[in-house]
């Protein structure tokens, strides 16, 4: 790791530690009741006493997120190819995708759960719906960003559409696709949680709902700390993958999207 990265990491860890210590001190000093804010020590105690429970539910949410995300990637890239290569498909598919994006998933989640069921699949579907749009848009943009001179070169050399795609358009679009993937993975986590908030018996979102109903704040904090860690790790994996697959075009640090 370079010296700069190391310094960034150390600063981040130091900041987190200071914040945690301050939080603990404030809660104890002002005797803040646990139903308002739990102390970090209480959160740790809650987590440590039921590690297996949290591990199981984290795995469920992770599974829903990954399933939804992978479907979003496959379907998203296919949709983008369709949009870029066919004017007709573009005018048909693009409005539908836009409408899907604008409808708030929080509103249709209850209906989806009734149609699809209350298990893992419906949560993966919501994750898919939420992660789909960024993948499509970034892939389509990337494919259109190919250098027009190189595209002309392919025509001059009598290359086929397939060769044009594989050799020019797709490699050019990879940096864009990855920026879309970074957005999509974080949205997929949010989508899975929305589904769990609305119904079902498993997952970190379910734990948060139960904890809120019983005023068990340490439990809900443990759950969303785990959720954040999960999101960060997944995001980090995409960054690593990008470095491996697109060594020539690593983009600057992206902002983490927060809206659904």
């Amino acid at each position, binding site marked *: 790791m370079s010296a700069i990265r190391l310094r960034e990491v150390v600063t981040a860890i130091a900041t987190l530690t200071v914040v945690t210590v301050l939080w603990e001190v404030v809660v104890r000093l002002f005797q803040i*009741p*646990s*139903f*308002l804010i739990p102390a970090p020590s209480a959160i740790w105690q809650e987590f440590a006493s039921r590690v297996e429970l949290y591990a199981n539910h984290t795995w469920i949410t992770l599974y829903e997120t990954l399933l939804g995300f992978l479907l979003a990637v496959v379907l998203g890239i296919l949709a983008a190819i369709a949009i870029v290569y066919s004017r007709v498909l573009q005018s048909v598919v693009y409005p539908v995708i836009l409408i899907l994006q604008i409808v708030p998933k929080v509103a249709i989640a*209850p209906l989806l*759960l*009734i149609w699809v*069921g*209350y298990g893992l699949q419906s949560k993966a579907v919501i994750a898919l719906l939420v992660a789909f749009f960024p993948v499509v848009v970034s892939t389509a943009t990337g494919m259109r960003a190919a250098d027009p001179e190189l595209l002309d070169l392919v025509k001059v050399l009598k290359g086929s559409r397939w060769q044009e795609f594989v050799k020019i358009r797709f490699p050019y679009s990879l940096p864009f696709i990855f920026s879309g993937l970074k957005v999509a993975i974080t949205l997929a986590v949010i989508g899975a949680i929305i589904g769990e*908030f*609305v*119904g*079902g*018996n498993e997952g970190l979102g*379910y734990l948060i*709902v*139960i904890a*809120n*109903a*019983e*005023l*068990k*704040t340490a439990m809900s904090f443990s759950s969303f700390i785990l959720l954040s860690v999960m999101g960060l790790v997944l995001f980090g994996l995409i960054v690593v993958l990008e470095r491996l697959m697109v060594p020539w075009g690593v983009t600057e640090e992206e902002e983490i999207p927060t809206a659904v």
Partner: protein
Amino acid sequence: MADAPERHSTAPETQRLSRREFLHLAQGVGLGVASAGLLAACAPAAAPAPGGQAQPAAPAQRRMRDITFLLDVTPYGKHALYYAGADHGEFARAGFNVKFASGQGSGDVVRKIGAKAADFGLADTSAVIVARAEGAMIKQTFMTHYKNLMSVFSLKKHGINQPKDLEGKTIATTAGDASLVMLPAFARINNFDHTKVSTLVTDFPSKLPAVLAGRAHGSFDFYTSWPTWVRAGQRQNEEVSAMRYADWGLDIYNNGIVVHDDLLRSEPNMVKEFLHALAEAIAWAVENPDAANAITLKYNPALDRDTARDELQVHIDHLMVDEVRRNGIGLMSEDKMRRTHQLVLENYDLKRPVEFEEFWTNEFAPRGIIPKV
């Protein structure tokens, strides 16, 4: 002699805005400010709060005390008993300007009262006990849901007619639902195995659709939701049936008025006066349910008049029990409270055992306000 190549400095150039750049910047800022101003001016008028403000009937010279009253859930028919005092004048005559807000269930209400975000709240006694165990210093001061409203609604075709029929069925519920938490106690009293009952956790509005769509056989609900179920069943040509815990041996206190300890200590007379006014308003509403229902609809025009009236009737039926006819609205009996306390201790995973005396009191409720019905 060839020109030496220009040396480009690697230090950052000091930025001096050119006039063109400055004008562009000023344009952008001006446009932004103008848009923000336009947006603010066109903002839609804030929608009226679900409760709305009371119209004080008292003479202008009396100083009114502002009160926030937190309903347990989004308003519906049963809340006529609480709205009545605002429009019929009991609150105003006692010097109170009551503003209504909605909580998201008893768990949310006890948290808000515990955090002093509202003065009075309507919440389940079990939620009060759980909240005290978690450090919220609140008390149940006035009872309104005397007879236990916990029930299981289901489609008649699934044959849930007695408690034992619950075994092997899937019942829809919200997280932490009181009826669900009390299921083991209900099972013990009625000799069936509660572990053989599956649950489907979902949000409140989805319970009825989940049952109608066949995802669950039934749903845990308060009996005040029965009128909505009956009508929904009629629309779908499905017969619906209800099984009330109270009819099968589990009768405990449900919702009442919750207040923070500090308010009880600092303004005991204000609390007593408010609860007195509330009891009078409730008595009037029980004697004049149609008029009371009209008040609810005034604050919540989207409700269906007939359904709301039926829901109000359910609340009235669960309020007018023997002890109310004897002692008046609001007072709680020690026997029943002990039973309630005991069941909560047994069935909830409390952080600490809450003492019997610490979560409720009759001290602030009025005496002898009995509706003449």
